C-alpha cells in the first residue's frame, strides 16, 4: 500500500504532528495511523465529499474579478490540527489575561489616560491611531465593556512556544468556518473524530448571543438583537447569515434601520420595531453618515446619538480599533503589566517600531530579512516579506517607511509551525496559525478551538485566504480527568 505520509520531512520548524521524522506526538498517534493506511484514491474521495459539502452549503466567497461571479470555497484541508488539553489550558489563561487587560486599556484611553500620563504608551501613538475616536472620550458603553470579541492570531515558533501575532478586536471574521469545518469533518471522518475526546464548538453561537444580550439596556424585558451587514456583496456575507441564523436574530442592512427620537427601529411589514443591540459587521467609519464618513450608504443616520444616549448597544463599541492598531500591539505586554501587575502568559512576537529612531535605523538596514506590515491593513495586504521580495519592492517600502514611519512595524520572519496537509501527490508539511475567538460578556468565554489557517503553497508563510490559504478543523482535546462534554459524549446524551 502506498504510504502517503512516508516521505514526510520535518525542517527547522516546529511540527504539530511529528516530534521527529517518524515519531508522531502521542496525541496525534491515532490520526497518524488512520492517514498512514489511507491510499490516494480514498483521500481524494474524501476531499471531493468535503468540497461538495461546502459548495452545496454555500460556504463560499465570491470572486468578482471575472464577471461570471464565480464562487469559491475556502480550501479545506482534511487533516485536523490537534491541541492537547494542557496546551489549551495555557492558551485559555493567556487569552483571558489579554482580553481583561485590553478592556481595561480601552477604558483608560477613553477616560483618564493614566497609562499615557505615566509614559507607558506615548500620547502621540494614541492620537495618531486611525481608529481612536476622540468623540467617545468620557463615554461609558454598556457594562463598561469596551471590547466584546477578540480573534487573536497565534503562531508557534520553532521551539513550539505560542506567541501572539495580532489582535482583531473589531468583530473578527472566520468563526463560521470553524463551525462549518467541524460539521463537514464529522461527515467525512465520523469514526476518526469519535475516537478522540474532541470538545464541541457549537456552543459559540449561544455564548455570542449571551454576550450581546448582556449589553442590552437593563429595563428592556425582551431585547431585540440584530446583525448589521454591509450586504450580500460583502466577502464575509456567508458568515453574517450563518451567525444570524445560528443565533436566531434578524440580519439587517443600514437601509432597514431608522433612528427616531434617538431610538433605533427596524422596518417590518407591520411598522417600526425597536432595536436594542446591534452586532455590526461594518467599520466605525461607515456607521453613521452624520458623524463619520458622509458618503456612507451602509450606515444609519443618527445611530451614534442613539448609542450615546444608551438606547442601543453596539458590538463592538465605537473606537475599539485603537487597541488593535498594529503599532499599538507593540505595547500590549506593557499594558498587561500596567493594569494587572502580571507578566504576559502569551508573549508578543518580537516587533520593531519605526516611530522610534533606534528601531527605524534597524528596520531600514535589515529590510531584506524582516517582515514589514502596514498598521492599518489586514488580510495579508500591505505587507513586505523581505527574504521573498524583489529589490524594487524593498526599495518601495524603504521610501514608504521613511515618509510615514507611524504607518509601519517590522518583525523578524517567524518560522510558523507546520502541520501535515493533503497536497497534490502526498501529505506534506504546511505552515499554520491559529485564531481562537474570545468573548467578553458577563465573563470571558473562549470557544475550545478556533480557526487554524494553513498556507497551502509550499514554503509559504502567509495563511490569508486571499493569498492561497486554507483552513483545518481544530480539535481541542478534553482532559481525561475532567468531565467536559466532547463530540461523542454529546451524541450519547
Amino acid at each position, binding site marked *: 500500500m502506498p504510504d502517503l505520509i512516508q516521505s514526510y520531512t520535518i525542517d527547522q520548524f516546529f511540527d504539530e504532528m511529528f516530534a521527529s521524522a517518524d515519531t508522531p506526538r502521542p496525541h496525534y498517534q491515532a490520526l497518524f495511523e488512520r492517514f498512514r493506511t489511507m491510499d490516494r484514491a480514498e483521500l481524494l474521495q474524501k476531499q471531493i465529499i468535503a468540497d461538495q459539502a461546502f459548495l*452545496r452549503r454555500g460556504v463560499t466567497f465570491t470572486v468578482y474579478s471575472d464577471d461570471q461571479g464565480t464562487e469559491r470555497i475556502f480550501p479545506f484541508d482534511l487533516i485536523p490540527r490537534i491541541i492537547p488539553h494542557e496546551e489549551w489550558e495555557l492558551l485559555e489563561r493567556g487569552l483571558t489575561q489579554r482580553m481583561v487587560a485590553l478592556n481595561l486599556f480601552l477604558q483608560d484611553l477613553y477616560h483618564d489616560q493614566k497609562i499615557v500620563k505615566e509614559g507607558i504608551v506615548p500620547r502621540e501613538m494614541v492620537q495618531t491611531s486611525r481608529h481612536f475616536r476622540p468623540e467617545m472620550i468620557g463615554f461609558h458603553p454598556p457594562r463598561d465593556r469596551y471590547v466584546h470579541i477578540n480573534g487573536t492570531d497565534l503562531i508557534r515558533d520553532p521551539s513550539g512556544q505560542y506567541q501572539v501575532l495580532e489582535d482583531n478586536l473589531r468583530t473578527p471574521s472566520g468563526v463560521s468556518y470553524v463551525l462549518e469545518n467541524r460539521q463537514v469533518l464529522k461527515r467525512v471522518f465520523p469514526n476518526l473524530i469519535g475516537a478522540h475526546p474532541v470538545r464541541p464548538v457549537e456552543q459559540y453561537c449561544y455564548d455570542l448571543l449571551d454576550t450581546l444580550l448582556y449589553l442590552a439596556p437593563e429595563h428592556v424585558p425582551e431585547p431585540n438583537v440584530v446583525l448589521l451587514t454591509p450586504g450580500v456583496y460583502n466577502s464575509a456575507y456567508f458568515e453574517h447569515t450563518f451567525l444570524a441564523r445560528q443565533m436566531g436574530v434578524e440580519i439587517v442592512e443600514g437601509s432597514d434601520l431608522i433612528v427616531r427620537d434617538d431610538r433605533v427601529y427596524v*422596518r417590518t411589514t407591520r411598522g*417600526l420595531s425597536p432595536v436594542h443591540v446591534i452586532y455590526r459587521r461594518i467599520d466605525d467609519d461607515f456607521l453613521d453618515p452624520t458623524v463619520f464618513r458622509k458618503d456612507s450608504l451602509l450606515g444609519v443616520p443618527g445611530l451614534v446619538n442613539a448609542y450615546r444616549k444608551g438606547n442601543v448597544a453596539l458590538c463592538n463599541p465605537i473606537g475599539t480599533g485603537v487597541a488593535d492598531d498594529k503599532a499599538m500591539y507593540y505595547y500590549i505586554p506593557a499594558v498587561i503589566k500596567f493594569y494587572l501587575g502580571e507578566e504576559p502568559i502569551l508573549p508578543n512576537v518580537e516587533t520593531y517600531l519605526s516611530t522610534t529612531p533606534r528601531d527605524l535605523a534597524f528596520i531600514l538596514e535589515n529590510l531584506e530579512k524582516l517582515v514589514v506590515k502596514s498598521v492599518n491593513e489586514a488580510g495579508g495586504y500591505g505587507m513586505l516579506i523581505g527574504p521573498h521580495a524583489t529589490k524594487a519592492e524593498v526599495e518601495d517600502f524603504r521610501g514608504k517607511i521613511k515618509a510615514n514611519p507611524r504607518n509601519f512595524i517590522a518583525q523578524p520572519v517567524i518560522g510558523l509551525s507546520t502541520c501535515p496537509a493533503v497536497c497534490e501527490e502526498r501529505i506534506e508539511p504546511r505552515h499554520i496559525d491559529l485564531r481562537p475567538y474570545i468573548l467578553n460578556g458577563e465573563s470571558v468565554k473562549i470557544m475550545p478551538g478556533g480557526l487554524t489557517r494553513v498556507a497551502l503553497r509550499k514554503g509559504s508563510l502567509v495563511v490569508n485566504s486571499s493569498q492561497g490559504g486554507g483552513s483545518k478543523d481544530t480539535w481541542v482535546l478534553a482532559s481525561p480527568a475532567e468531565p467536559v462534554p466532547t463530540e461523542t459524549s454529546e451524541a450519547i446524551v
Partner: protein
Amino acid sequence: MLSRVANYIYWLARYLERAENISRLIDVNAQLAIDMQSLPGESAPAGWEPLLRVTADEGRFAKFYPEPTARNILNYMIFERRNPNSLYSCIHQARENARCIREALSGETWEQINRLYLRIFHENYDDLARIGESEFINRTRSSILLFYGIFDSMIPRKEGWFFFEVGRYLERADYTSRLIDVKYFTLLPESDQVGSALDLIQWASVLRSCSAFEAFRKNRRGLLTPSRVTDYLILDEFFPHSIRYSIIQAEENLRRISQDSDHHFSNPPVRALGRLRADLDYALIKDIVAGGLHEYLDSLQLKIADIHQAIIETYIDYPLENAPIRG
C-alpha cells in the same frame, strides 16, 4: 417580519414559479414539435417561435440571435444570461434572493435551491442536446418541485410562508393569462381545421402547458374547444393553475398577512385583490369572449401589476415618516 425579508421571499417565490412555468412551456413545446412532424400536410405554425411571444421576448431575442432556429431559441430561453426571463436567469435570481435571506430559510431549503443553481450554472446547450430537451427540463423541474417539497415541510405557517404563497400565485395567474392570450390568437381556428387532428393536439398542448390536460379530461370531459379550454384555465375554481384559483389563493394568503376578518379590507392590496377575486367569481366565459378575450386578459394583467405595486407600498417600501411604532 422585516420588510426586506418579506420582499426577498416574495421574489424568491415569483422567480421559482416563473422558472417552473418556462420549463413546462419548453417541455410541452418539445413534445408538440414531435407530434407536428407526424402530421404531414398540416399547416403547422413555426415550432418554437410562439414561445418567445408568451414571455414577450421577440425583440430582445432578435438582438442576440440572427435566426429563430430551435437551437437558438432553446439556448435563449434556457441558458442565455442576457435574457432576464431565461430559465437560468430565473433560477439565478431566485437563488440570489434566497441567499439574501439565508437566515430566514432552513439550511436544507437553501441547500436545495443552491444545488439547483449550481447545476444549471455549469450546463450549456451541449448538455441539453446530449440528453434531450424533455429529459433535461424534467430534471430541472423535478429539482424545483423538490424545493417546494422541502420548503413546504420546513417553513412555519407564518408571515414568510404567506408572502411566498402570495408571490407564487400572483406570478402563476399572470403566466396563465399570458399563455392563454398568446395561444388563443396563434391557434384561433381557421374554419376547416376545427376538430382536426392538429387542432386537437394544439389545444391539448395549451392545457399541458399549465399541467391541466388530465385535470380537464377528468373534470370537464367533452370536446377541446377554445372556449371550453379557456373557461377551464381562467375560471375553474379548483384547478391549481387556473387564474381564478390562483387569485383565490393569493387573496387568502394576503388576508393572513393583513389579518383581516371576513368582509373586512384594511388596506389597498387586500381591497384590490378582493375585488379581482369577486370579479372572477361571477364572470362567465361567454361574456369574456364577447367583450374580447385579449382585452380581458390585458386588463387582468394590469390589475395583477397594480396589486403587486400595492403590496410593495403597503408592506415593503412604505414611507418611514409616519410609520407606526409597535412593540
